[in-house]
């Protein structure tokens, strides 16, 4: 309550900026919605539960998209929930299409917009072949960047376009939400000739952007670090670099490191318990959980026919199937 920032702003703005209002509004809204049920066990109890769940990040489960994306905390919570729930899918080694990932997202958020998933897939696939299969980790990290920094990325796209066009973006008012037209990637010929934009210039622009951006953006130092490694880069190259940067992942704090992505002992334990309850299932799973685990991690999956194709598709992305690492991490 006594942080110096607090004194810099009027109370109301401070609360709004800290999204306290969002949660209070939502709490009241939920209360309103479930009046009858809640009145049975007390309004105080409800508020306790509500704010507890907000702290734990479970408040976004099965909520509407507008709420899920309302605050950075909600976004991080959603990312974490997605990871938690479908880690097993990734662990199983299945490569899925963008639509299928979208379906999984919709299981948690029924009105999750397709556009976001598409954008995330574009980061992974680097081209418009949207029917390609993606590994869970590739998708998840790309999705994290796209979802969490969605507004920031739109601004970046606008800046990138301006740079490509030779304009000085700093004089241009950066569009925040209505920058759909900037989303198109540069024509192939131009891109191959120029190979994107110069990193230093781009970096400067982004620094400026980070300074005045009112939405959350990745730590400027890390962005600088990403950009300092190369001379020139394309927009998608930048996004891929962002998504692969584990510092950014750490700063975001929603997901574990890539190496630990498939690692969640608490849930694994829970899963074993659940597997033991599968109706009609006999001792195989319970008596010998390792044996039960085997099919999920079998190497044949890695070597299955569509694997090479997948590799060829995303040479640019330099993304190896994360499965190898997964195996590493699990052993």
């Amino acid at each position: 309550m006594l942080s110096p920032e607090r004194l810099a702003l009027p109370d109301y703005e401070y609360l709004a900026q800290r999204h306290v209002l969002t949660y209070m509004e939502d709490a009241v809204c939920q209360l309103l919605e479930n009046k009858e049920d809640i009145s049975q066990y007390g309004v105080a109890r409800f508020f306790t539960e509500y704010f507890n769940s907000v702290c734990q990040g479970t408040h976004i489960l099965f909520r509407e998209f507008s709420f899920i994306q309302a605050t950075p905390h909600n976004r991080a919570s959603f990312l974490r929930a997605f990871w938690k729930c479908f880690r097993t899918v990734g662990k199983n080694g299945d490569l899925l299409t963008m639509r299928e990932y979208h379906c999984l997202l919709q299981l948690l958020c029924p009105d999750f917009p397709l556009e976001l998933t598409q954008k995330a897939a574009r980061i992974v696939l680097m081209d418009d072949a949207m029917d390609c299969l993606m590994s869970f980790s590739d998708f998840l990290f790309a999705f994290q960047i796209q979802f969490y920094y969605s507004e920031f990325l739109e601004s970046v796209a606008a800046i990138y376009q301006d740079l490509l066009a030779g304009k000085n973006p700093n004089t241009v008012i950066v569009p925040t939400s209505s920058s759909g037209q900037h989303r198109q990637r540069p024509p192939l010929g131009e891109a191959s000739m120029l190979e994107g934009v110069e990193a230093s210039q781009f970096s400067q622009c982004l620094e400026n952007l980070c300074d005045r951006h009112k939405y959350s953006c990745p730590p400027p130092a890390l962005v600088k670090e990403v950009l300092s490694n190369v001379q020139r880069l394309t927009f998608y190259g930048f996004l891929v670099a962002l998504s692969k940067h584990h510092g950014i992942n750490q700063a975001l704090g929603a997901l574990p490191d890539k190496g630990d992505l498939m690692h969640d002992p608490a849930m694994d334990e829970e899963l074993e318990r659940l597997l033991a309850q599968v109706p009609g299932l006999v001792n195989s799973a319970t008596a010998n959980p390792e044996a039960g685990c085997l099919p999920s991690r079998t190497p044949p999956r890695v070597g299955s026919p569509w694997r090479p194709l997948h590799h060829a598709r995303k040479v640019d992305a330099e993304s190896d199937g994360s499965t190898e690492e997964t195996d590493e991490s699990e052993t």
Partner: protein
Amino acid sequence: MIPGKYRSVSGRAANNVNCGLHLVIQTSSLPEKSKVEFKLNKETPSFSGRLLQHDLERNYSSRQGDGRVISPSPRNKSSCISSTTNVTELCGLEMKTAMSSLSAFGDSSIQTPSKSRIRQGCHSAGPNVSGDHITLASSSMPSFPILQRSSEEKILYSDRLTLERQKLTVCPIIDGEEHLRLLNFQHNFITRIQNISNLQRLIFLDLYDNQIEEISGLSTLRSLRVLLLGKNRIKKISNLENLKSLDVLDLHGNQITKIENVGHLCDLRVLNLARNLLSHVDNLSGLDSLTELNLRHNQITFVRDVDNLPCLQRLFLSFNNISTFESVCCLADSSSLSDITFDGNPIAQESWYKHTILQNMTQLRQLDMKRVTEEERRMASVAAKKEEEKKRESHKQSLLKEKKRLTINNVARKWDLQQHRISSIAPNQDRKVSDCPQDPSQLRGSTVSAFPEETGSLDSGLTSALQGLSVTDTHLVEVDGDTLSLYGSGALESLDRNWSVQTAGMVTTVSFTFIEFDEIVQVLPKLKIKFPNSLHLKFKETNLVMLQQFNALAQLRRVDQLTVDPQGNPVVNFTLWKYYVLFRLSHFSMQKINGTEVTQNDMIMAERLFGILAHVASSELPQYRLISILGDARKKQFRYLLETKGKKPGLVNEENSDSKRLVGENTNRATLNYTTRDFYNERLEEIKEKKKFCKMYMEDLVKEATEINMKNEALQKLWPQMFIELVRDAVIEIRNKNSYMKLCLQQITDQK
């Protein structure tokens, strides 16, 4: 049988008629050699026995009757002469009887070894007898030999001349034989009919087995009654214009493709066109006396004009290409026809053949050489009636099928249109379903066809309930055995109908086609109640696109099998869909998905993939949310139950416990439910409203709070100073003790 018949006929002829013309038909063992003997005789009845035997002796054993030839027997020279009138009259009369019976059997095989033995003798003796006395002298003309007979020969056989097997290549010029009545050129090599135009009294002309290519040179033979041209090379029936009194015309074994130029032969009784190349029968009008028509061994596919033959009694159509009764249906209109053969035609292979023929041709006495018995006729009529019924039924069925097909097409078109529209415009819910009036008779018919075992209960008041199939233009509902098929969204309304308990109980498979899945979701509770035994759900073209849509199926009572056709259901392309279904609907312990057996491994995999989702959903959800999500489902059920209450209290109770069981069974996945897009959007709208209100409310509240806070803070800030000031004021006031005391006392006294 055949010889017996033959015997009786010839015997009768001999017995009853003093002056008899005997036609003896012999069929040789070789088809082309079969032979008919034509005898003129004038005998006493007592002599007939001998004659008969005599005849029989010279009969060649016969096998195939197509090559029938009528020839004068050279042996009966003395006895067969009679007056001209007699001959012609009898010829007509007797031939009719004899020919008719004989030709009827002529085709069937007659195997009599003894006769074939006799034949040898005949060959050596018979034809040569006359030949011995004939001198064929070369004429002055280069190619025509001139025939001359000795005078005694002439006296002996004044009216007949037999030139069998003389290796003739042309007709010889026959001089001074103007009174000839019979002329036999059998088995020669004659290519053209010539040099006989002077024989104007000729009654019988036999040119069997020659090489004649065209009928010609007969225009002067006005009295010709029997013309035998079998086994030649004739391609066309022609040049018979003047032969008005022709009685028998044998053209078998030629190359005739078409019946023509015979309309003027009003006296013709027998026409033999067997073994030709006829493809159909036509142009028969004018043959007013025709009693027998032999058309065996052609390629006839249809028969017309037979009903224009007033006297036709025997028609032989064996070994042709007739395959339907329709192609010979004119036969049914012939009142005179009593004997017909169809053997060797495709039609005779049909199961309906006999009774159809008998039913349509009641006048028949013989069919395929067998007598038609009364019993057969009766059976035929019964069978025909059955056949008719069956036909009607099948027609109705095919009509129904066609209508079904059309309707489905229509629904599919609508669906396509709608899909297109959905992709371009926002989904529009007020689709019009215009039910067109249904044809009640058809409805009834289809009901019968769909539930043959329930026809008995049709009139038991359940008629309206038993709607096996109702066809409308925009949707289709069909019950076929245990399958209820719904096409088009309008078909969902049928679930509101009062289905009979029996029907409803029987349905185990429900198939949805061309229906938006979201619409199906809305009727699932109804489906559960109306068709409690439905175990197998089929979806095709239902726009299943998301895994979460399967959540909706969890509310059903039981699902053993699920079939989701990839057509129009993109969700099937996902690798995970099967596992998700298994996971979400695990409480059904499903047996088959898309026809494949569900294995234990599938179940484990499903649990492995999605178990955590369920766990997270159930354990990490704040309690108020859990209650509200579960409550939603429960509330929904209750709302529906309230609606149906009163009607079927028993069902409701059952339902109640069922839903409880359901909820109890899988609380951890009950949170994963599906609300249809429209409903969800509605809810979002609602939430938006509430949010707006909450926002305003909170804004006010927070503003108030911050204001209070601000005031409080300001006060807090001022308070120490104020306190000091207050204290200072007080101290200053009491600094001069005396004056202060005075003041105080003053105040007290003032008060009083």
